[in-house]
C-alpha cells in the first residue's frame, strides 16, 4: 500500500472508531484528525469536509461486502459473515442511539448508485434475483435491528439453502 492510501485508510478507521464512541453528529474534522493521528493539513489534503470523509467511509464499508463476495467463500458463509459484521458493528450500534434518522435516511436512499452495485454483487453471490433481494433486505434490517449469533447462522442458512 502506498503511504497515501495508508493515510487514507487510517483516517477512515479513525473516523469509524470516533463514530463508535461519540456518534456521527458530534464527530468533527478536528477530532477525526486527532483520532487518526494525522495533522489537520494532512486530513484536508485527503478530504475537503466531513461529508466527503463519511462518503469515503460508506464506500469502504460497502467494499467489504464485495471483498466477501469475491473471496469465493460459500454463499451461506458469506451471508453469515456479513450478518455478523453488520449486527456487531460498534459504529452502527452508536448511530442507532445517536443518529437514527441519518441511518434510516442512508438505508432508504435507493437512487444512490451504491445500491445498484450492491444489488449486482448479491446476484453474483446468490445467482437468483429473489434470493438476492431477500438477502439484501435481511441485511438492511440488521442495521436497525441487529441479530444474535444463532439467529444470524440459522437465517443465513435458510436464505442460502431455500429452494425458491
Amino acid at each position, binding site marked *: 500500500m502506498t503511504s497515501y492510501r495508508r493515510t487514507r485508510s487510517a483516517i477512515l478507521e479513525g473516523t469509524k472508531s470516533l463514530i463508535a464512541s461519540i456518534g456521527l453528529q458530534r464527530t468533527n474534522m478536528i477530532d477525526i484528525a486527532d483520532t487518526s493521528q494525522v495533522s489537520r493539513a494532512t486530513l484536508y489534503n485527503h478530504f475537503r469536509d466531513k461529508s466527503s470523509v463519511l462518503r469515503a467511509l460508506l464506500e469502504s464499508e460497502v467494499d467489504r461486502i464485495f471483498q466477501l463476495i469475491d473471496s*469465493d*467463500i*460459500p454463499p451461506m458463509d458469506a451471508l453469515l459473515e456479513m450478518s455478523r459484521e453488520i449486527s456487531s458493528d460498534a459504529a452502527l450500534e452508536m448511530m442507532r442511539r445517536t443518529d437514527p434518522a441519518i441511518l434510516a435516511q442512508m438505508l432508504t436512499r435507493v437512487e444512490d448508485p451504491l445500491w445498484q452495485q450492491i444489488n449486482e454483487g448479491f446476484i453474483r453471490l446468490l445467482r437468483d434475483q429473489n434470493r438476492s433481494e431477500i438477502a439484501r433486505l435481511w441485511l438492511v434490517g440488521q442495521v436497525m435491528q441487529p441479530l444474535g449469533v444463532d439467529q444470524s447462522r440459522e437465517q443465513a442458512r435458510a436464505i442460502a439453502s431455500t429452494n425458491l
Partner: protein
Amino acid sequence: MTVVLLREHIGQSLRSARTSQNRTLRDVAREARVSLGYLSEVERGQKEASSELLNAICQALGLSLSSVITDVAREIISCEAVKLVVVDAA
C-alpha cells in the same frame, strides 16, 4: 467407509474456536495476516495450512498450537474408535 482427513479436523477445530469467540472470518484473517478466502478454505478443510500459517491462525485465535493439535487428536481418536468397532463387528 469415510476417510479421516487431518486438515478437515484442523479446519473444524479452528472454526469452532473462532465462532465460540464470536469473531468474524475477516477479523481473524486480518490478525493472522492471511486472506479471508484462504482462512475460509482452511476452516472447511479444503486447503492444507502450512505450519507457519497454522501458527499464525492459532495465535490470532489466542490458542496454543498444542491445544489445537490435542483437540484434533481427540477427535480423530474417536472417529477411529468408531471405525474399529465397525471392523470388529464385520
